[in-house]
């Protein structure tokens, strides 16, 4: 925006300079042209005046020639009379002189005759008659008669003007005379008319010209207030808006102290170059001679006139300033229109964008706001730009999201239901397991701890222990194939069958419980109609705590470890045997082991040794054995925790892949 303004200002400044230059030039040119036209007009008027004057003069001259020829023929009459001898030559001369002196025409105009000595031999003015006029001078000092004699003696006749009194008047006036040499008697005959009439007429006509120019000048304006004026070489102001008729010879330029008219006359030598000076500016500043003026001055020599123009330079600038002001106003107007347009356009965009943003914000805080959804749909439909498209896309996304969330809610509710059911199932499953025994039960001759960690809510691993008879501990650990709900159901069935089989035996065999028979019974029950071939690996044992004897049997279960007090570790020998559930009437083998003081029996499921780490490696029996070898003196609960922690650490970053059950027993002889 500011760039736009700066550019506009620079542009206007440049234009201003250029326009100023051009306009000043134009104004000066027009001043010069007007001055030139005025000069041409004056010249025309002058030529017209001259023509009139010449014409009038020529009329007088023809008249003089005519009357002269009459006078000469009259003289010829007297000469003829003498020639024919009717009168004497002397008589003829006297009569002729007398007669001519009585000639009058026009305006009391007369004839005069001089002899070669320039003696007035015929003249109506008796003061001059018979006087020698050779030394006569008119008011301008001309030897009038000597000039006349000169003309007629060289040309025989000729015109001559001089100043002379009119008959009966005291004031000398200009007179045009025509003189002829009358050779018969050697006389100079002349007559004259007073031509000041012509001058009077000329002056009258000149005044008319001046008046006309005054009118003309009043109509002419150069620039705003510039005007034209004419003053004469005699420093008389001829035409001027308010100084006409004044004598300007003593006008002094207050700024320079020089004679103003002299400056102007000097400037007339260069009519093409404006003469610049400082002047006042009435009526507002009558005493402040600080306003720059320009004058073109031209000289019309025939009339001794100075024609001049006069302009205030700031007035010359006025139209330019007006143009510049207009230009600035136009630029401002365009700028304002642009700003308003930008404001409305950006508001149009930002309003829609703001609406959309608001909608999105509402969505993040209030879910899916229904109230401005209609407005958004209108926006998407009505606005055909990126914002509209964005809104449309957004609404589509919102709809998809809305549907998705609705579906998700339904599924989540279903999942939640399943999860809560699974949690109930888990509680039921855990309640199937025996209660934890006191950590130290040395009074009864042993320590025992069992732990279970399912991969899912419910699992297929199991453990059990109870006292079917005093001093007799039965225990079992098992692993159902697969995981989750089916395995959990199978596990529950298995544990129930196991307990039932042990209790039946303990009742029937008077406390003599054989683990192989327990397995056989449970297997027969599980294998019946087991179409899906689920199975359970199981290890179970009976310990006579008083005698320190362990009887045990395994149905395909991982062999437990026996850790001696010394740290020595043995894997329990066991006969090969199938897991429970595959085939009925399967036989299992009974094995026996004498326990030593502090022997630690560690039973586990394959969730331990088959645990995987991120490299895809198994935990393995070896790792378990090496861990257990350092735990030979620990409490069973500590051993279980150490193993569980070790396995969980091993599979860090992965889901637990299989259920884990642990059972640890220490024999403490009473």
């Amino acid at each position, binding site marked *: 925006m500011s760039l736009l303004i700066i550019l506009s200002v620079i542009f206007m400044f440049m234009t201003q300079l250029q326009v100023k230059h051009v306009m000043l030039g134009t104004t000066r040119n027009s001043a010069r042209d007007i001055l030139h036209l005025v000069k041409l007009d004056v010249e025309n008027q002058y030529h017209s005046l001259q023509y009139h004057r010449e014409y009038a003069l020529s009329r007088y001259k023809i008249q003089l020639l005519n009357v002269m020829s009459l006078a000469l023929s009259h003289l010829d009459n007297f000469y003829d009379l003498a020639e024919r001898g009717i009168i004497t030559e002397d008589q003829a001369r006297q009569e002729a002189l007398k007669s001519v002196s009585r000639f009058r025409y026009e305006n009391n105009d007369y004839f005069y005759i001089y002899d070669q000595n320039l003696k007035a031999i015929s003249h109506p003015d008796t003061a001059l008659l018979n006087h020698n006029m050779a030394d006569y001078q008119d008011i301008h000092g001309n030897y009038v008669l000597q000039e006349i004699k000169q003309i007629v003696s060289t040309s025989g006749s000729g015109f001559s003007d001089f100043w002379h009194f009119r008959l009966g008047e005291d004031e000398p006036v200009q007179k045009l005379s025509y003189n002829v040499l009358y050779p018969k008697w050697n006389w100079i005959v002349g007559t004259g008319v007073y031509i000041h009439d012509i001058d009077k007429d000329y002056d009258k006509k000149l005044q008319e010209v001046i008046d006309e120019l005054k009118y003309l000048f009043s109509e002419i304006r150069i620039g705003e207030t510039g005007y034209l004026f004419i003053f004469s070489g005699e420093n008389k102001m001829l035409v001027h808006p308010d100084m006409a008729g004044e004598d300007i010879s003593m006008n002094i330029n207050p700024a320079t102290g020089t004679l103003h008219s002299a400056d102007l006359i000097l400037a007339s030598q260069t009519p093409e170059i404006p003469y610049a000076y400082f002047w006042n500016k009435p009526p507002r500043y009558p005493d402040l001679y600080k306003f720059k003026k320009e004058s073109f001055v031209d000289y019309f020599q025939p009339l001794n006139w100075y024609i001049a123009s006069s302009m205030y330079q700031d007035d010359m600038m006025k139209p330019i300033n007006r143009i510049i002001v207009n230009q600035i106003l136009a630029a401002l107007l365009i700028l304002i229109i642009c700003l308003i347009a930008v404001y409305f356009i950006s508001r149009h965009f930002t309003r829609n964008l703001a609406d959309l943003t608001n909608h999105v914000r509402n969505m993040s805080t209030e879910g899916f706001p229904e109230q401005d959804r209609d407005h958004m749909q209108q926006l998407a439909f009505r606005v055909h730009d990126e914002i509209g498209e964005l809104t449309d896309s957004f609404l589509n996304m919102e709809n998809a999201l809305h549907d998705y969330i609705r579906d998700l809610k339904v599924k989540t509710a279903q999942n939640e239901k399943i999860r809560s059911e699974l949690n109930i199932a888990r509680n039921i499953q855990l309640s199937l397991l025996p209660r934890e025994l006191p950590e130290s039960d040395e009074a009864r001759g042993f320590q025992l701890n069992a732990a279970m960690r399912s991969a899912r809510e419910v699992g297929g691993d199991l453990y059990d222990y109870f006292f079917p008879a005093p001093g007799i501990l039965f225990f079992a650990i098992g*692993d*159902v*194939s*697969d*995981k989750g709900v089916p395995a959990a159901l199978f596990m529950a069935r298995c544990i129930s069958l196991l307990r039932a089989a042990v209790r039946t035996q303990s009742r029937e065999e008077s406390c003599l419980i054989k683990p192989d028979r327990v397995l056989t019974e449970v297997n027969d029950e599980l294998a019946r109609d087991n*179409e*899906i*071939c*689920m*199975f359970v*690996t199981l290890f179970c044992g009976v310990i006579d705590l008083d005698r320190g004897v362990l009887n045990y049997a395994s149905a*395909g*279960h*991982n*062999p437990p470890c026996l850790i001696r007090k010394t740290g020595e570790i043995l894997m329990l020998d066991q006969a*090969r*045997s*199938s*897991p429970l559930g*595959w*085939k009925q009437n399967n036989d299992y083998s009974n094995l026996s082991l004498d326990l030593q003081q502090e022997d630690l029996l560690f039973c586990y499921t*394959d969730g331990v040794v*088959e645990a995987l780490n991120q490299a895809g490696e*198994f935990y393995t029996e070896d790792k378990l054995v090496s861990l257990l070898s350092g735990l030979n003196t620990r409490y069973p609960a500590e051993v279980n925790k150490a193993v569980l922690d070790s396995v969980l650490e091993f599979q860090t970053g992965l889901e637990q*892949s*299989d259920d884990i059950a642990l059972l640890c027993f220490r024999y403490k002889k009473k």
Partner: protein
Amino acid sequence: MRISTEDYQGIKIISLIGKIDSSTYRELESEMLRIAEQPPGKILVDCSQLEFLSSSGIRVFYLVAKKLEKFNGKLVFMNPNENILRVFEIIDFSSDFSIQNDLAGALKEF
């Protein structure tokens, strides 16, 4: 896990590659049951590229064996790795299925 099957003189040889655990056994189950549907039900399971076998996978073999009973078919295993062999020993797998070290031995079983 990947399963590839080929026919050899009326015997379906199924090669198991990778790991069979609780997340992959279903594929094994459907594939093997499909094969077990067709007589004569002679199936050789090549375990040489099998890395791990979970109890879920073992259940599938018993399920398949049960299906094969009606054709009097047979399921033979070949060349399991050490770990799997240990599992087979624990659960006395060999009392129900023949486990062979090589193809020649395995083919003789049919």
